[in-house]
């Protein structure tokens, strides 16, 4: 580990033409203070595709319908299709057509991203205001409306990462440069 850090410091000095005399010294300037467990927990809100970070709690499709109608439908439409903002439902099978419709059901590769994004950024006017149960429930409703989970499925930290999204295999890495010259 120490070797790696020292190497990084040397690399960065070389890149920026530093030569100020720090390169040979320890990587540590002694700045920063140890983060407390509470500080990390307060901000550590990301949910990985394996489900890492998912909190306790659970939600059902009927509960989600209520939360969605109260806190999401005004922007996304009563059914998740007709709203002024991003369409959430439908579009499956459209990606390779002349009119692709990118929604949760047609495009999103991981169900865990739903929890992560809704928790951190929604509702638009009150981000991070939903309880874990509310987030799980809205996620359940959105997945069900997209035909991905049955109406009686409970979504929680165990079941969500196991949900297979229809477009899970739809992403490729960056092949550029990909356009022939002249």
């Amino acid at each position, binding site marked *: *580990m*120490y070797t*790696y*850090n020292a190497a*990084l*410091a040397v*690399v*960065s000095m070389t*890149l*920026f033409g*530093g030569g*100020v005399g*720090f390169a040979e010294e320890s*990587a*540590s*300037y002694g*700045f*920063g203070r*140890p*983060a407390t467990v509470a*500080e*990390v927990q307060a*901000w*550590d*809100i*990301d*949910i*990985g*595709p394996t489900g890492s970070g998912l909190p306790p709690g659970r939600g059902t499709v009927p509960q989600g319908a209520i939360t969605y109608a109260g806190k999401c439908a005004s922007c996304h439409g009563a059914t998740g299709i007709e709203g002024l903002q991003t369409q959430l439902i439908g579009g499956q099978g459209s*990606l*390779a057509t002349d009119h*692709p419709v*990118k929604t*949760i059901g047609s*495009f*999103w*590769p*991981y169900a*865990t*991203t739903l929890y*992560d*994004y809704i928790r*951190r*950024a929604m509702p*638009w006017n009150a*981000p*991070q205001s939903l309880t874990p149960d509310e987030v799980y429930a809205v996620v359940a409703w959105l997945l069900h409306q997209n035909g991905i989970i049955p109406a009686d499925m409970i979504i929680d930290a165990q079941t969500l990462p196991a949900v297979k999204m229809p477009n899970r295999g*739809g*992403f*490729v*890495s*960056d*092949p*550029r*440069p*990909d*356009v*022939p*010259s*002249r």
Partner: protein
Amino acid sequence: MSSPDQEKSVHSNRETPEEEHVGRRTWLTSAVSAMGLTAAGLIVPSLLPAAEQHHSDPTRVPGRIPSPYGTRAPGETAQRLTTATHSLTPHQVLHGIITPSALHFERHHNGVPTIDPDQHRLLIHGLVERPLTFSMNEMMRFPSVTRTLFIECSGNSGKEWSGPTGKTVQETHGLMSTSEWTGVPLATVLAEAGIRSETAWVLAEGSDAAAMTRSLPLKDVIKDALLCYAQNGERLRPEQGHPLRLVIPGWEGNACIKWLRRLKLGTAPFMTREETSRYTDLMPDGTARQFTFVMEAKSVITSPSGGQRIEPGFVEIRGLAWSGRGKIATVEVSTDGGGSWKPAQLQVPILPMCHTRFRFGWWWKGDDVLLQSRCADETGYVQPTRAALVAARGVHSSYHYNAIQTWKIARDGQVTNVHI
């Protein structure tokens, strides 16, 4: 694209010279009064002609005293075009390569947060030896680096995928700007926390109402990414991520997380919404390219450009070229829609991952013209035609549109955006 804010702003700019002038006139009047009637009778007609009171001879009147923070010149009315989610840089009226900080484009995902820099912290955790938290004072104590770099939104020119949409270069290419950025290398700060050897990705998170997040491959960002606190000599503008933002040379603006509050090291990408549902490039076969970070070489003629009108005679064709892969090597200009090309003059210094200003002296004879610029970067990559780009990617990929831009000049001198 206009908004109430914009109109208000225009109005207030117009007020400034007026107020200044009233002040000067008042001073003159009182000074003249103090001199007595005889003197006033002699002086007033020459100093304050009734019809030309806005054009007093500045060599005969003391000027304004120094001010703590300057204002721009009377008549300089360049404005960003604003929408609810972004604003666009007015390249058609700018010079050189530095975008004035107040005109740097904006893109945010739920507004510009209000952050107290003294309270702001950067947390580094995950696969590190020592989870650490840094104050802004500590960030600014690290050895610093300054680089002049472009930042381009991957959606810049994105509406052009579906046809010639933008009327002006501000609308077609306004989601990019260049600033001189100062900060500390990401590598320096991560080393302080101790990177564990299994780390491959870094999650960067903003302190805005979108808690904006992107996963970044460590092997790339460790080379030259900066944690920046200053822009063009002063602290970052609020809309540019004050007090701290990532700047990754040559990468799409979305990856340069603003209002940075957290870096989490991990073994794999975190698959956030902004790197799955968004900022991925849909191809005609229905697959989508992911983690397409680099902005490929691109150029555009900023003058003459859409919405402008030129006169026959000498016209200096001016534009910008840039590449996320390094330095611009050449820029060529065509006046016949790509049938023939001539080299443009490049303004030195030519910096990597930075706007390069190009110029081409030209005499317009009043005929129909299809004006284009085409750049190549130091890797040998040549900016593609629209036809070649669309042949490779279709028209639904939304992001990373870098085709040659065509401006049509009609015989009346009017310039419009066309696709050929």
